[in-house]
């Protein structure tokens, strides 16, 4: 039992030295997105997101370390006559951009592409959506989550003519955070 006098302090050092590795968890934060309707590459409507309005985010923001997993969820309806590949882009500020060209030049591709056939609908699930996030998007999202939590999302497609809408949209973030 004398060994315990050494073992217990050593265990405590191992557990406490790296910061909050013991007192941390992976916590889901979900943020509702309004329905989006896109009618062309020059008629985009952005969705301004303010994470600070989310109680779970506010609770954990100070101890947020990383984003462990994330997904854009919802049902994508292609109401046009050609197949589309939907992408979600973000700008790091609250912006009001209307064209795909300006969004792509000043923003970061966050997610996609999601193929939706003409006249069809795709309800993207968590597993399918998690695979569509870009590395650059994750970095940007993490920085925004650690920052002011305000950014703007834009849904667009390749080409200039398309017509789709997104219903029951949801941004799901699993954050690595201290508790």
């Amino acid at each position, binding site marked *: 039992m004398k060994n315990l006098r050494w073992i217990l302090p050593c*265990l405590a050092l191992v557990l406490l030295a790296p910061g909050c590795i013991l007192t941390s968890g992976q916590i889901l934060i979900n943020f509702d997105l309004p329905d989006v309707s896109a009618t062309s590459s020059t008629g985009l409507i952005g969705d301004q997101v303010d994470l600070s309005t989310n109680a779970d985010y506010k609770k954990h923001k100070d101890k947020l370390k990383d984003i462990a997993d994330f997904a854009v969820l919802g049902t994508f309806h292609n109401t046009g006559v050609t197949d589309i590949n939907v992408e979600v882009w973000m700008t790091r500020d609250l912006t009001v951009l209307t064209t795909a060209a300006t969004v792509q030049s000043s923003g970061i591709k966050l997610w996609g592409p999601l193929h939706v056939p003409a006249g069809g609908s795709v309800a993207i699930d968590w597993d399918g959506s998690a695979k569509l996030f870009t590395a650059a998007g994750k970095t940007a999202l993490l920085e925004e989550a650690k920052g002011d939590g305000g950014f703007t999302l834009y849904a667009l497609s390749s080409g200039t003519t398309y017509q789709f809408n997104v219903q029951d949209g*949801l941004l799901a973030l699993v954050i690595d955070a201290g508790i």
Partner: protein
Amino acid sequence: MRRAVLAVMALALTAGIAQAAPIGIGVGAYGGVSFPILQDDVSQGPVYGLRVPLKVIPMITVEPYYLTSHLGHGEQTIGGVKYTRDGFDHTGYGVNALLGTALGLGFGLHPYAGIGSHKLVRDGTPEIKETAYNFGLGMGINAMPKISLQLRGELNMVVTGDTSRKFANATVGLTYSL
């Protein structure tokens, strides 16, 4: 004559050391349940593994191990819609140091700690391959020669930067002393 005495003394000394700290080795297999701790995107799943306890010095057993676990889907209901996320395939190897022995006859409790290299894999998440720490308490019941029943509860902590993914593993296994 002197050589004979020294040889007898050496033999007696060696036998004494061997009796006080017999070197032992065993092999064991175990299975149980792995419960994620504070993880919203994964749920419990089965865990299996192998251990090779080596008693090399008194009161300490060094035990290399291999672990594999298939964690269950994470399930979350948001806005009345149930979403699921694939669980991780968790594999790892390392070594634990047990206070006491998992070998020999009788009944014993042995706290232990260890370190390993663990990997968490699932589609859509970058592979996590990091150092893991183990802390646990085992109970050995040797109902028959050479075979012991091992019951263990442990905290397995895979460090991911400033945070970690933690699992509470409850296992039962059999160890055979060679």
